[in-house]
């Protein structure tokens, strides 16, 4: 088909016309675009410039170094160590699998941490996630050299908490750990620091109670950041403030010695300075290594601690509550003295048991003690004496005396879950049990059984108050940031000196007199002697039938049903400095098991180092040498040496 001229001319004219119209429209739209451009870039430029600034400048927090914790002599108990870690931003890596594979070829990675990190990276591809923690310097160097081949990987240096003396301080200082969602929710005014990755917060113990002082204040860096959160450069910085250092009243040497002395027993011991309340040692055994918790404890490790029947995770110092047994007799005695129910040379007759309301209450000595005066009642720990005394004095006055001596009080100590124990009286039983107090309850309470419960710390405080005659409260923190905390002494106790002396004299005889239940634990260190009281508290009822057959010996019972062994004491007798309380769970007899431990602890405290063998009575020396030389002590903190030759 041949195109005709008219057709060609018509279309040519038309196309020219339409092309010009179209071109005009395009030009018009171009002008519109230009106008819009001008509007945004010139008319509104200032506003957008401001928005752009806000967009890119971010404030990043600098985590402060956590305050150190020292013992009373300046030994570091909780410090900070430099740790090397490797983190990764997923967005910056082209092929995550390839990068990880390459990294694996360079250093050994912990599989569990790695898998957790990979999951976290999936959720937050723009954020820095830690792939491996606590690398050696060599590993970090290897990675640093290979960084160009590892897109997205950054080697980092950070600080992490470390407890150089490990086991000794699990229950005193506790530990720090990664911030959990719950920590953030619990904080009233959440510190923005909590949100910084890898930040550590006190989880338990003094680390938690002193968090405010130890944490410090965050510094800030003004940085230019991209939308992915990646820092491009730093624009300025303000330094923060490191956490405040804390000095404890603990003596690291004594603490280590007692921890070793308790060994694998389920036990607790406290040594307190009776003049100012300083807690020189607070030990709960068995213990665990708090360093395990800092980086996150493994599941089998944790299960091992949790399922151990000796409960290593339990702080027996302030949370462990035990019937104080015969160590409570000083309380009953002083309550009786105060009530005027006994005094001077008053005596009670012990025939082996007391019959009250048709029930027999037995003395531990089946044949009875005969006539018993105040000194003998403590020395030989006669139960019947106290049954008689309690009937006359009444539970409410006994309870008042117990409280005066610090029982039933939750002391304000920088530990977690400080328990207040239990000092029962009529009102308590009516309110909590819905029953009337009966006389049998008083008899049980008079010898520290029944409802009475006390923690090892409370027993040490009780003994300390008897020894010093001062209302002394325990104190764990000596100073914060160099500022000393006030002494634990509130003033003199509201107890006449003669009453205190009655108890003191009895306690002296327990150890130093012939027939004293604790005479095995006596010592004489350059003229310094001590006073104390044993306690053996039952954790089971002895039925009449069993009593008739003959009471089963502790050694024949399963561990969990044996008696608790307790011992309290103070030294030196004539000018008291330290009190001690030892509880060995299901240990058996107080004087045979707890007594020697309390003795060794207070001897160490008096000597400022390992007790000299010469201070032990000749009969005990060989055994003491054997025990002391078998202890695995930390030579950097324990002072003194056991002299094998006398």
């Amino acid at each position, binding site marked *: 088909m041949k195109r005709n001229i008219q057709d060609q001319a018509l279309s040519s004219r038309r196309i020219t016309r339409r092309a010009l119209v179209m071109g005009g429209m395009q030009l018009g739209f171009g002008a519109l675009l230009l106008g819009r451009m001008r509007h945004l870039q010139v008319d509104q430029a200032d506003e957008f410039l401001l928005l752009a600034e806000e967009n890119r400048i971010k404030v990043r927090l600098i985590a402060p170094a956590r305050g150190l914790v020292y013992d009373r002599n300046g030994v570091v108990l909780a410090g900070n160590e430099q740790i090397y870690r490797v983190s990764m931003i997923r967005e910056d890596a082209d092929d995550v699998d390839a990068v990880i594979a390459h990294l694996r070829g360079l250093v050994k990675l912990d599989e569990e941490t790695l898998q957790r990190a990979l999951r976290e990276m999936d959720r937050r591809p723009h954020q820095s996630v830690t792939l491996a923690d606590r690398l050696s310097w060599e590993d970090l160097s290897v990675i640093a050299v290979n960084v160009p081949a590892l897109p997205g990987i950054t080697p980092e240096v950070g600080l992490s908490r470390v407890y150089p003396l490990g086991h000794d301080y699990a229950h005193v200082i506790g530990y720090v750990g990664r911030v959990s969602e719950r920590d953030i929710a619990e904080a009233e005014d959440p510190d923005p620091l909590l949100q910084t990755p890898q930040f550590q917060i006190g989880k338990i113990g003094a680390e938690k109670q002193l968090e405010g002082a130890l944490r410090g204040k965050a510094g800030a860096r003004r940085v230019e950041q991209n*939308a992915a959160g990646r820092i491009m450069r730093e624009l300025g910085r303000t330094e923060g403030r490191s956490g405040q250092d804390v000095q404890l009243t603990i003596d690291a040497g004594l603490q280590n010695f007692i921890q070793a002395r308790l060994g694998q027993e389920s036990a607790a011991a406290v040594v307190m300075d009776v003049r100012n309340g300083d807690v020189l040692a607070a030990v709960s055994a068995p213990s665990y290594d708090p360093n395990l918790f800092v980086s996150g404890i493994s599941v089998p490790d944790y299960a091992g601690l949790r399922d151990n029947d000796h409960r290593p995770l339990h702080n027996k110092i302030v949370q462990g509550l035990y019937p104080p047994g015969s160590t409570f007799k000083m309380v009953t005695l002083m309550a009786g003295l105060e009530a005027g129910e006994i005094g001077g040379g008053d005596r009670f007759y012990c025939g082996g048991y007391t019959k009250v309301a048709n029930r027999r209450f037995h003395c531990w000595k089946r044949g009875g003690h005969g006539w018993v005066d105040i000194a003998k009642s403590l020395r030989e720990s006669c139960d019947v004496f106290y049954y008689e005394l309690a009937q006359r004095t009444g539970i409410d006055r006994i309870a008042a005396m117990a409280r005066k001596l610090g029982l039933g009080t939750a002391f304000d100590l920088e530990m977690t879950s400080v328990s207040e124990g239990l000092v029962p009286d009529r009102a308590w039983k009516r309110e909590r049990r819905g029953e009337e107090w009966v006389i049998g309850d008083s008899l049980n309470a008079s010898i520290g059984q029944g409802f009475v419960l006390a923690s090892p710390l409370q027993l040490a405080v009780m003994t300390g108050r008897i020894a010093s005659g001062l209302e002394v409260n325990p104190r764990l923190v000596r100073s914060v940031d160099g500022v000393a905390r006030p002494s634990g002494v509130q003033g003199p106790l509201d107890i006449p000196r003669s009453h205190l002396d009655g108890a003191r004299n009895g306690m002296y005889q327990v150890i130093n007199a012939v027939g004293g239940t604790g005479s095995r634990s006596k010592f004489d260190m350059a003229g310094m002697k001590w006073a104390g009281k044993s306690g053996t508290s039952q954790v089971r009822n002895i039925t009449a039938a069993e009593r008739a057959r003959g009471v089963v010996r502790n050694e024949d019972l399963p561990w969990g049903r044996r008696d608790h062994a307790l011992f309290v004491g103070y030294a030196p007798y004539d000018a008291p400095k330290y009190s001690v309380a030892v509880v060995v769970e299901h240990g058996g007899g107080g004087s045979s098991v707890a007594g020697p431990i309390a003795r060794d602890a207070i001897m160490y405290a008096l000597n400022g180092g390992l007790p000299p063998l010469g201070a032990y009575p000749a009969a005990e020396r060989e055994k003491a040498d054997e025990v002391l030389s078998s202890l695995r002590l930390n030579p950097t903190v324990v002072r003194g040496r056991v002299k094998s030759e006398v």
Partner: protein
Amino acid sequence: MSYLEYNVARVPAGPGKLLALNWGLVLLITAVACIGFMVLYSVAGGNWRWAEPQMQRFVLGLGLMFAVAMVPIWFWRNVSPAIYGVTLLLLVAVELIGATGGGAQRWIELGFMRLQPSELMKVALVLMLAAYYDWLPANRVSRPQWVIVPILLILLPTALVLKQPDLGTAILLLAGGGAVMFLAGVHWAYFATVIGAAVGLVTLVIKSRGTAWQLIKDYQFRRIDTFLDPDSDPLGAGYHITQSKIALGSGGWTGKGFMQGTQARLNFLPEKHTDFIFTTLAEEFGLIGGMSLLALYLLIIAFCVVSALRMKDRFASLVTLGIAVAFFLFFAVNMSMVMGMAPVVGVPLPLVSYGGSAMLVLMLAFGIVQSAHVHRPRAQGEGQLFRR
């Protein structure tokens, strides 16, 4: 119609064709592409990772353009229906076998490159329509039965692209095809009717929201929402537009300087090297820079229009003008989008945005424009530098 209708004797042949190229246009295209390399280098933070492959593609594209330009325009006219048909088949193919990328099936994996048939269709449709109007006698152009045919030719690929779903390309196909019909001289009344119907359709689409017969996807609705009020959700769906405006606006008259733009380099901008690349240019070079690019674009259009008006051949003119309009639509839609004048629909900035398919297809299109220019019928003595 055959090549004999052209005054073949006066069309340059052999190496002479190279001299007859529209060198002004080549220069303009190269200038725009160079601006692209510069911005890509800056966006990557002073890194060649995007600029270098883009340069390689541009050189490849230039070669393609010259090759296409050497082939006589009548050859292109004769194969237009075939190109259109094959491209249409490819579009159907991506529906069936295409790899899924970005939630939408848009390309066919060829091994050495990913072929995006929808890109190719932008040129194929212009070729097809131009060939159609070249064949159709001028006096029948506005007759209803002859208007239905091009409308179907446009709607067929548009529907396929919309199904992918690629709203941006669908709009470009519709507008580009309509523009060729307009240029060919279809009566005003048809356009008035279509625009009226479009307004009705948009109303219908908006009303379909939330009902069982909803016509477009939720994310497309959200884009419309945020286009109308970007501040309503500045960190969510409105993020693109808000950040884009911040980057652009903070540029001012002269910009922050080469490599000094903070917004794009710091990743606040999404798709900073593709659809939103204009914001970086405007941030770093300010209004002056943006204006210069716009001027270059308009000059390219002007060169095409001037060239088309001198061709005296219906196919050649229509193809040149059609490609110019398609090119115009590219940058007009993209710039409107980044400046908050249109919803975000995913249209790259021609010759500047990072991307292989779009670049090669554009160069192919300019090759056809050059071919039309080289092989235009000439009056005695015109276009001959050396008289025999």
